[in-house]
């Protein structure tokens, strides 16, 4: 039996009973209480959508991508890449479940609070939300997934989906499909650009999703020797448009200066809440979220936007919590150009030095729009070519090649200190 969910971006999203049960799980329902864009609604009031609808959208788009690729080169997948029909059925199911669950480990207010995740002593790295997503699948969904007869029959278990989510090298040839969830042309980006644009009320994130879907294919990359998701030449400009849409969304929305400072205010509020005991549940984690261990993940899942804002409203989150309630955010006092020279970076250091007696917030807005060498979108010639000669999009597109990374640092001070700070920085800002 299937069910339909109406979605503002994709129309109807069809799910089956297994997916319905996962969606109805309390840990998935928690995503209704995790905003997609943190406190972006402080600047763009429409940005109140959640990870819940985005997760459904990613599953929908990833499935479409998978189906179009299968339709494009069925013989190639079977004869050259040794996928059997049952392999493809299994992988489609894994892609759907992984896409559905890929964001289940997000912290309250999404990326804003990611810096508060615990440190992994084994890898010497700070955990990311992907690690929490994988842990939630392993520890919270294994009972359901590992006892479902249909999934057992297909050879799917919770560990396999978790490996898919956190990119275990043990995945082997199924790593191909991970490109649909984690890549430069993946279902995650494909969905959030359209969805965020829709809710915020901007057109920057628009591109032609249908054209991309209809030009997706698969081929072995001669250089890496690995099978990859590729785009046919007729879809190169549609792929280019998605990269440009992302560039525009970051520069015009995600990196907007007031939006950025609210990421710091919410993170500082949560950090403050994580250092105290609030209510009956233990919440003192020294300013960090519990780690994604079997024991820690249960405590972690207790945190969502509602809990945070409830505590903020009760006055437990200090100065930054009050800022969230009154919208008296810190004000931008200095910023480097998007592409700073060495002298700009030295001015930044001098500015920070001059403001050493102020409570300041430092924000680094950094992103590269296109990773030329890691997962460059590969373009394949149309029918007629005898071999799969792939060309990186960055090589075909002067526009993509010319997109420079943004590396902008901003300094903010409390609103009542803005005039004093301006006077101190007068010589630097000349």
């Amino acid at each position: 039996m299937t069910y339909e969910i109406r979605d503002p971006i994709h129309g109807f999203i069809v799910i089956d009973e297994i997916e319905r049960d996962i969606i109805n799980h309390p840990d998935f329902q928690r995503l209704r209480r995790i905003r997609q864009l943190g406190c972006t609604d402080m600047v763009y009031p429409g940005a109140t959508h959640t990870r819940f609808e985005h997760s459904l959208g990613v599953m929908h788009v990833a499935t479409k991508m998978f189906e179009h690729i299968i339709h494009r080169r069925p013989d190639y997948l079977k004869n050259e890449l040794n996928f059997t029909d049952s392999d493809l059925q299994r992988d489609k199911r894994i892609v759907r479940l992984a896409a559905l669950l890929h964001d289940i480990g997000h912290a309250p207010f999404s990326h804003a609070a990611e810096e508060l995740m615990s440190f992994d002593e084994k890898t010497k790295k700070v955990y990311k939300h992907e690690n929490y997503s994988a842990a939630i699948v392993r520890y919270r969904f294994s009972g359901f997934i590992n006892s479902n007869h249909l999934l057992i029959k297909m050879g799917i278990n919770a560990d396999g989906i978790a490996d898919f989510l956190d990119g275990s090298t043990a995945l082997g040839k199924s790593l191909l499909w991970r490109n649909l969830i984690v890549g430069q042309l993946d279902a995650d980006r494909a969905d959030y650009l359209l969805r965020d644009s829709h809710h915020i009320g901007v057109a920057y994130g628009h591109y032609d999703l249908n054209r991309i879907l209809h030009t997706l294919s698969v081929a072995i990359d001669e250089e890496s020797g690995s099978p990859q998701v590729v785009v046919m030449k007729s879809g190169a400009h549609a792929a280019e448009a998605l990269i440009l849409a992302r560039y525009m969304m970051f520069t015009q929305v995600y990196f907007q200066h007031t939006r950025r400072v609210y990421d710091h205010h919410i993170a500082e509020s949560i950090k403050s809440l994580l250092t105290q005991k609030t209510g009956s549940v233990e919440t003192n984690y020294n300013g960090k979220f519990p780690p994604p261990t079997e024991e820690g993940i249960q405590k972690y899942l207790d945190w969502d936007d509602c809990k945070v804002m409830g505590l903020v409203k009760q006055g437990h989150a200090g100065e930054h919590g009050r800022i969230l309630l009154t919208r008296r955010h810190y004000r931008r006092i200095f910023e480097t150009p998007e592409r700073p020279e060495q002298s700009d970076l030295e001015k930044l250091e001098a500015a920070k030095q001059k403001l050493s007696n102020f409570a300041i917030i430092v924000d680094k807005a950094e992103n590269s729009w296109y990773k030329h060498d890691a997962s460059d979108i590969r373009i394949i010639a149309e029918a007629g070519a005898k071999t799969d000669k792939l060309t990186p999009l960055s090589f075909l597109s002067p526009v993509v090649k010319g997109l420079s990374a943004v590396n902008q640092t901003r300094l903010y001070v409390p609103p009542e200190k803005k005039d004093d700070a301006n006077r101190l920085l007068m010589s630097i800002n000349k």
Partner: protein
Amino acid sequence: MDSYALVPWNRYALITELARRLEPTSSQFGKTALQKIVYLLTDLFGIPTGYEFEFYNYGPFSSQLHHDLDLVAHIGGVVVEDYSAEFAGYVISPGERADALIEKGAEFIHSSEVDKAISRVVDEFGDFNASELELRATILFVDRDLAARGKPTNKDDILSIVQKLKPRFDKLTIESALEGMATGEYLRCSN
């Protein structure tokens, strides 16, 4: 290192210093080679570069390093040029402001620990081309990945996974690289 520094001069200086030291020895010091060399410095020689690596199509890759290279090139620490019109690759060489940028991170770059590690990575891996570096970095990544996941492994396990991840390398080539890494006592897996 200085991941939380206001301006991560040490990272910028490291990229510039590697361009300077590897330009004469490496057959083609490009973006892939830079990624793999910094990965080796980080995970093999334990230098706190501040970079985190994930596994992509060409082996371990750090988005932050990719991003920093772009900025260092903009500042003039390095020059990144197209290799040729036919081949979609890049060559990295020191730029006109290389000295000034290395000076900004001199304390880090010239510390005995970092200086020794760079010398070792240049001596032991500097002659490999991008493809050979990719294979060795992949072997190391698989070894460390499995160890971090608490999965006991031996060389055969690593061989089997690398064969699946890098099918363009034949078994003998992978075995030879694996043996070289094991002989250098770079791996944590058992024999």
